[in-house]
């Protein structure tokens, strides 16, 4: 294994497809969505899990506890589900401060309350000093999906619009800078937040909403590449329309990183039918988490499977899936 296998990009997808799907494959797992969709006694249940290994565990704008709740809530929300309950597993390193663990648990509780979910079950394991980097957290979650709701790449059509609920790359850059290895002084906060209300508001538009995703690891570029591949269509982004904070643009420029590949933890990307796109935009902008929402692109019939970017400069290029972790350039 290399770190690239955990980056959320091509190597991660290759590992999941060639190893986990081969060994564990079944009809529930195979769609590889943000959540699995189960039919239980006539109810449609979304079921998801995610692990959190962020370093540092407390960063500007949030901490690992809040992140672990919001991340799983968001995976449920973009599957069209109303989040109901979460589990929380704590892997704690020997020597970790109990007071710190309490602060993080309290932070989880606040996030759970804000998202309207209960942490209904949990587990604690302690490992020897030197393992687990202080604290790792796993959360799983279940939510209820309304009858008749269908979301997915197969429902996307040429001409549909791509909407983004806010600025790109805030979480990834905030954490990268908080590590203090870069000698950059930038005031930037993670965007960690639950997007379930944004999702619910969009889903009131019914069939016009085709596809939802929260662009976390691998960023917007990776999420849209997966869409282009699944839907066998092209996604064309408009560079000038992408909402970006100047701090993120500046830090990315210095480090040679493309904000399209940087992780977000409180954003929603939606594909919506063209006739409903303005209404969808207004709905996003009407919510405090969606104030910077924008229509950032559209779906085209070809070139199949590719994400394109019309540059602000007047040219165009393709936006590939992330390969490995973004490596900073040297000169």
């Amino acid at each position: 294994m290399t770190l690239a296998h955990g980056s959320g990009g091509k190597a991660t997808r290759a590992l999941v497809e060639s190893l986990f799907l081969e060994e564990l494959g079944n009809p529930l797992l195979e769609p590889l969505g943000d959540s699995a969709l189960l039919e239980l006694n006539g109810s449609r249940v979304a079921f998801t899990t995610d692990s959190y290994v962020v370093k540092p565990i407390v960063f500007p704008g949030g901490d690992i506890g809040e992140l672990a709740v919001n991340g799983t809530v968001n995976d449920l929300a973009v599957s069209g589900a109303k989040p109901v309950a979460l589990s929380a597993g704590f892997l704690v390193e020997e020597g970790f401060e109990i007071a710190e663990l309490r602060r993080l648990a309290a932070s989880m509780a606040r996030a759970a309350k804000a998202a309207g979910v209960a942490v209904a079950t949990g587990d604690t394991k302690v490992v020897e000093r030197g393992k687990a980097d202080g604290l790792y957290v796993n959360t799983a979650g279940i939510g209820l999906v309304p009858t008749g709701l269908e979301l997915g790449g197969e429902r996307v059509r040429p001409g549909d619009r791509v909407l983004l609920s806010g600025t790109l790359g805030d979480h990834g850059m905030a954490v990268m800078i908080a590590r203090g290895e870069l000698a950059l002084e930038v005031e930037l906060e993670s965007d960690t937040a639950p997007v379930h209300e944004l999702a619910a508001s969009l889903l009131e538009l019914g069939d016009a909403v085709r596809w939802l995703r929260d662009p976390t690891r691998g960023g917007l570029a990776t999420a849209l590449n997966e869409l282009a591949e699944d839907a066998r269509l092209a996604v064309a982004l408009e560079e000038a329309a992408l909402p970006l904070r100047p701090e993120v643009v500046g830090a990315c420029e210095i480090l040679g990183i493309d904000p399209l590949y940087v992780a977000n933890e409180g954003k929603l990307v939606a594909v919506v039918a063209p006739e409903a796109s303005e209404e969808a935009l207004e709905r996003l902008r009407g919510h405090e988490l969606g104030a910077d929402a924008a229509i950032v692109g559209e779906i085209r019939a070809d070139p199949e499977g590719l994400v394109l970017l019309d540059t602000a400069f007047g040219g165009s290029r393709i936006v590939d899936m992330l390969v490995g972790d973004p490596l900073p350039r040297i000169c």
Partner: protein
Amino acid sequence: MRYVDEFRDGELAQKLAREIETLVEPGREVKIMEVCGGHTHAIYKHGVEHLVPTEVDFVHGPGCPVCVIPMGRVDDAIALAERPDVVFATFGDMMRVPGGRGSLLEAKARDADVRMVYSPLDALELARQNPDREVVFFAIGFETTAPATALTLLRARAEGVRNFSAFCNHVTIGPPLRAILDSPGLRLDAFIAPGHVSTVIGTRPYEFIVDEYDKPVVVTAFEPLDILQAVVMLLRQLREGRCEVENQYTRVVRRDGNPRALEALEETMELRDTFEWRGLGWIGHSALKLRPEFADWDAEARFELPGDRVEDPKACQCGEVLIGAIKPWECRVFGTACTPERPIGTCMVSSEGACAAYYNYGRLARPRDTVPA
């Protein structure tokens, strides 16, 4: 964002594009080599190729410092990194470059202590923090990055830091350009010369291209508008029958370069008799090594290295890409056996390598380009 947006103005770009239209002769191709990988990256990232008429053909040169490091030197780096007493510090780009025995990233996964740094000074700091370990810095790059290595060596000596050394692979930009100009059958009309290297060495080192080979040169900055302006300047020279070294990057570059940086280089490093370039072979006086006075900080003097020469993979055509003889997609393994996930040749590794830039950004064919499916 200030200092960025003004160099990426779409309207100005259209104006320059229209001027370029008026300067080309329909049907007569002008081949312009952008020497530096930074230019290649900018051309593809901003879609500059789509703004110029098809008569303007960008040929991607050898100026990607990661791309030109031969596989044997990567193996030497891995051998250093695998020593239990060594902390091996490298720029991020070098981590994925394959040698004969895999990459530094793979060595790291096998437990070698490889750390990514942004500056040689960060490596020196690592040495201070780990007094019981040997910190070796993988020094690569043209005259752009070499002065930072030089200043770090001077500081290590001044502060008496004894557990720091540099594995020096710094190269110089002049000799490979001459090698390319001397290669048989090459047809190039003009050069976009690198900007950042020139902040150090100035514009004089390119004068031989004008004097001996009769090709116009424009030293150019890295924003897409800079590149379009350089194309205008080169086309004007060709049209007016002039042949000069012009400086587009006047906001930073001086004819004599940066004397203090050159002094630091002179004090710490000297030319090697010869050095192997990936794809280009051995080129005389094309690289730097530490002076004997700095042997205590020279990883090559302090550690036993395998020093084996590793043949480039047979299928790889990086050499022909690097001299502009073929386009990235004309290589027989481009996009099939050789991709950014599993690069065979180094042009596919760094985002500034011609193949990776083309693979990542450019696979939208221009009308006259033929790209195999």
